[in-house]
């Protein structure tokens, strides 16, 4: 049985994968695309938080909000000027895929040139640990768990208790019918892209003190959130949350037992899921 510190580590991993996956699925459910640059919005959010704190002295919680707003705004620009054009008639999914892949490398290269390639740290944010007897947990990791709870509750409220949320759900289920009822699907797409990228950015921001910040930090979270939505079911918000939880704990526990082989095992598991239940745990059955 893994020790408690492995389970807590798994919980922290779950929180981030869940948040990232949620944002990806939200975008997929409205725009019908997988945003391959999602990990780079995570990275950009981390850099916004880093510089907001170190250069401008802005407190961490406000820096997080700023990262969500700024990078969410960037996401909306990407949707408006890149994705919207490439999803119009005459183009196809391949164009959008290539475009978001290109953006992935573009953002990495731009971040490398603008911020440098050396790892940056924010150890002074929420320093210290909570001593729990045989092990301790850093306040930074506790903040990740609290942040995720707040985000999930906020998203639940927005999606289920607000007009915007109603519009988003309607557009996700039946975009044509929704537009007949006066819902601007284009505007909903813009908002959803903004929310999805903001979630990624704030996930990156909350992790900036936990890990290091560098232009390549978004790649692994992107891959892991993709695995999470495959496990949970592409297109299912509940699936994204459950998939993130499963993946986070699996990653930590398998690494504890099998060391570096954990990566191989995780991907093998995903392949098995795709073969046995391609719609994932909560996705709609394939036609």
């Amino acid at each position, binding site marked *: 049985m*893994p*020790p408690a*510190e*492995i389970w807590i*580590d798994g919980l922290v*991993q779950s929180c981030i994968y869940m948040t990232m996956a949620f944002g990806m699925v939200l975008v997929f459910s409205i725009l019908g695309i997988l945003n391959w640059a999602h990990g780079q919005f995570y990275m950009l959010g981390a850099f916004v938080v880093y510089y907001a704190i170190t250069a401008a002295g802005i407190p961490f919680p406000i820096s997080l909000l700023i990262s969500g707003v700024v990078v969410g705004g960037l996401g909306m620009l990407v949707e408006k000027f890149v994705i919207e054009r490439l999803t119009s008639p005459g183009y196809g999914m391949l164009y959008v895929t290539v475009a978001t892949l290109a953006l992935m490398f573009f953002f990495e290269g731009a971040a*490398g040139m603008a911020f*440098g*390639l*050396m*790892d*940056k*740290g*924010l*150890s*002074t944010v929420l*320093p210290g*640990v909570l*001593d729990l007897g045989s*092990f*301790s*947990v*850093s306040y*930074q*990791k506790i903040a990740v768990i609290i942040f995720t709870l707040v985000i999930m509750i906020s998203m639940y409220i927005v999606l289920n208790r607000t007009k915007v949320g109603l519009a988003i759900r309607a557009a996700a289920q039946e975009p044509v019918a929704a537009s007949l009822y006066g819902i601007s699907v284009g505007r909903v797409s813009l908002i959803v892209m903004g929310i999805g990228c903001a979630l990624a950015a704030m996930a990156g921001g909350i992790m900036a003190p936990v*890990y*290091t910040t*560098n232009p*390549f*930090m978004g*790649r*692994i979270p992107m891959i892991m959130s993709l695995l999470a939505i495959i496990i949970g079911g592409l297109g299912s918000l509940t699936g994204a949350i459950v998939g993130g939880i499963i993946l986070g704990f699996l*990653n*930590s526990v398998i*690494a*504890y037992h099998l*060391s*570096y082989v*954990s*990566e191989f095992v995780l991907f093998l598991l995903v392949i098995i899921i795709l073969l046995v239940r391609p719609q994932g745990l909560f996705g709609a059955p394939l036609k």
Partner: protein
Amino acid sequence: MKKWYNVVAILMATVIVLGIFAIGCAKTAPPQPGGPITINIGEPVALSGSAAPWGQIPTPFREAWFEVFNREGFQVGGKTYNIKLIQVDDQNTPEGGAAAAKQLVFGDKVRFIAGHWTWNFSAVAAVTNPAKVIFVTRTGAPDQLPASWGGLYDPKTMPYVVFGTPSQEEFTADCFALIKAYPNYKRLGLMDSVQSGVDSAGWRALKKELDAAGIRYHNEWFAVGTSDFTPYITRFAEAGCNLVFVAGWVGEFMLFSKQRWEMGYKDMKVGCSGPFVDINIYKAVCGPDAAQGLIGAYYDNSQFKETKVNPKYIAQCQEALRIAAEKTGKPYTYTGEIAWLPSHVLILVQAMQKAGTVDDTDAIMKAIRGGTFDTTIGKWTMSGEKTYGSAVVFGSPAPLCTIQGDKEVYLSEYPTKPLP
């Protein structure tokens, strides 16, 4: 009319041919009498991509050292020579390495390549060896191991390769230096990325030496891109390791150090197989408390206790550090480069002096094999006849330091023994 046309055409052709000839002569024309002759030395180095920081950080010291070295230059056959370093970005990839080597060898016409450390040895050697360009690099990466170990280095097909930095052997010596510093250790933890090859020939060679010395150890590998080392720290702790040596990149080392502190393993000492870049970076990532006691390589040759370094080279390096600090406007503490390019250059220079030539690379290689050279990190004899098939592997003091406050403080040293 046609006659005049022909005359003009012939005149133009003559002018063009003479112009090309003049440009060709100008490129190879000797400098003005009385001044030193410049020899170009090439260096394929990572200046872009994820490894770029390691190519860029040494730049201020490197430039300063050549500035100091060229004040006197060196003499061969009664003539004075200076060195000009030509760096080409190799992006730390095989394709980049091959392209950089071609640019240096065929474009810049270098006869020597030095300071190389990136992971593209065989790609660079494939260009330099046929061109008879001496290639001074390091041991350690899987393709740089001897063919007899399963690597790609073969002295028969790569007769112009010199291992000026013994990274593989130094890693072993670093382990012994650690144990020397902490003789009451319980178990030594060793960790590396799978990229270096799980249980590769290099690792097996290391373990053989550790076993022979009776050192207790536990080995872990982590997947490339790992940021969360909690499972590995737990595994080390359960194996009884209170001293861990990390062979990964700096980011991974910093995260391991930070996370082990936060998990409560404050007594677990952590070292990395490379010099500290800048203590402030480690403090920013790990936290000021977690960064204390971290162990790294340390090439401040004025601090060596067991390896004697020529006072002239100590003074050169101290002057270069001072100039680098002046140019960057802040203290320059990265000592890693002292053991690298300047050391390689001094091997080449002394070999040229022994051989009495700056052009004949066969004669220079003959002087290098098995020769003794006085460098920035001590006087060493090239060895490795039995192990590598040719006596072209240099030595190292394998010095370590630890972070105390805001400074790196000498910890221990375990000079590498000449290879059989």
